[in-house]
């Protein structure tokens, strides 16, 4: 599989114009995504309601190929709903989704072989061994040399010790690694990860984050990440979409957001937005990308 064209590894989210005062520079985000960058995801005017509840409210964003972008927001902010719509598991009430150059709502089977996902809301059959589960998904994704690919993933994610054990017998952390292996079985060009390191101890979580970063750099894959782990987002994401009540209320590179809100960490920015306070121009105002 050849990798899609990649955008620069570090996203120019803030204009590196040293002539401007630092505070002003931080308040003036550069165009995102960078003009001319190939876009792995284009979401336009996405909306989703469940009865009276508005889960996602007319959001638009784009993710350049080869980058990691994070969706951040509190519980019920609309992150999982957004990811489910991007995956084709959930039909939006309105809007368009283009993934890897294809209209996801009309031609999702053209693009599904090129993407994959991991989420705590789904799991693999407990009675099948890890190897059997990965073999099943190797067949479903049309992976050539499934056994060799499983061996590669077992090495990378340290699955070797329990490859032949039933998935149901694994610890939460081991299950998370197996879910990641399943998400990587087809060498996806686009990876959607919902809480990818949930349940992992700090050491394993750090290894997995490192492995995902290497995977992105080496293959040019695009990663869209939903996470509550702010340190993880700061480390992995070049750009952050802050969601609240189904809307994207702010966005930018982690460092730019921290500077714009005058805070020390992304977690403090998150709390400012969640509680509707702070220095951000659009902490509660529904800013649009």
């Amino acid at each position, binding site marked *: *599989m*050849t990798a*899609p*064209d990649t955008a620069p590894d570090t996203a120019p989210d803030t204009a590196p114009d040293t002539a401007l005062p630092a505070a002003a520079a931080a308040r003036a985000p550069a165009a995102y995504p960078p003009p001319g960058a*190939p876009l*792995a995801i284009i979401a336009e005017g996405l909306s989703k309601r*469940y009865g009276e509840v508005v889960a996602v409210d007319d959001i638009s964003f784009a993710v350049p*190929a080869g980058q990691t972008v994070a969706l951040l927001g509190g519980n019920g902010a609309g992150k*999982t*709903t957004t990811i*489910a719509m991007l*995956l*084709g*598991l*959930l*039909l939006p009430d309105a809007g368009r989704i283009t993934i*890897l*150059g*294809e*209209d996801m709502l009309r031609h999702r*089977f053209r693009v*599904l*072989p*090129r*993407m*994959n*996902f991991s*989420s705590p*809301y*789904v*799991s*693999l*059959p*407990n*009675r*099948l*061994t890890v190897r*059997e589960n990965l*073999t*099943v*998904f*190797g*067949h*479903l*994704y*049309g*992976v*050539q040399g499934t056994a060799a690919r499983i061996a590669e993933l077992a090495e990378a994610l340290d699955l070797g010790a329990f490859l032949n054990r*039933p998935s149901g017998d694994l610890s939460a952390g081991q299950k998370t690694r197996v879910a990641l292996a*399943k998400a990587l079985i*087809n060498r996806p*060009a686009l990876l959607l990860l919902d809480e990818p390191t949930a349940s992992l101890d700090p050491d394993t979580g750090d290894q997995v984050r490192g492995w995902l970063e290497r995977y992105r750099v080496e293959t040019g894959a695009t990663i869209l990440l939903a996470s509550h782990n702010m340190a993880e987002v700061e480390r992995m994401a070049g750009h952050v979409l802050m969601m609240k009540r189904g809307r994207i209320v702010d966005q930018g590179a982690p460092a730019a957001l921290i500077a714009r809100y005058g805070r020390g960490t992304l977690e403090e920015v998150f709390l400012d937005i969640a509680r509707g306070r702070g220095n951000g121009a659009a902490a509660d105002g529904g800013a649009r990308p």
Partner: protein
Amino acid sequence: MSPRDNPFALPPLHGSTARRIWGMVYRHVCLFRSSWPRLVQLAYWPTVQMCIWGVFSTFMQQNSGWVAQAAGVLIGGVLLWDVLFRGQLGLSLSFFEEMWSRNLGNLFVSPLRPWEFVASMVVMSLLRTLAGLVPAAFLAVPLFGFWLGDLGWALPLFFGLLMAMGWAIALVVVALVLRKGLGAEELAWAIIFGLAPLSCIYYPVSALPGFIQPIALALPSTHVFEGMRAVMFRGEVPLGHLAWAAGLDLLYLGIGAVVFVLIFRAARRRGLLLSIGE
């Protein structure tokens, strides 16, 4: 956008419909391979049923002229009924397995098409039914001197017609469970047992009250069991009953497929594929 214009166009993977269906069948084969009680259970109930009705038949042959005319009519009935029952249950349970394990989200973001998913469940239903039926059918020979193969060339037709009816019912059951959640899984058993009295497994359709007979004759299974008795009693294959059963099967399979497609779409609108599970 044409593939030539798409900057993300990549060389094709090695996926195919046959490989994806095999992937799903392999998933269920692994399940049975890892759990011998599941495998034994497949054959256990049909064998027990066959034994009960075999003993009853032996008794009735000595006391009932009707049964004595065609030894084994009750055993034949119970074995063919099990084709319908296992056919329906085999498809439904394969689907429930995915719901119980909260795996639907993984499956439906893969390149597996919904119709390929259904096809894999049909294959599993066939394998489950054969695994249940074959041991019981062979055991009936030494125990009661009944060989199901004596139905001749009509046997594969009866088998196919009953399997098709089972799949049609299962598609509706699966759709309702997808819509209503696993609380509705009892339907898999309840619907099929509700149809048993109307299918005239052990008695002719003429034994039913007159106003119920048209309802019974709207079921493919009733025509199959009437056909089975015609073969056993008169040695003739009633083509009319076979044609009715085939036509009704097509109708019900069509209805089942439409219901499944509509509810699957509704599930995608409601986000049920991600959230549903135990």
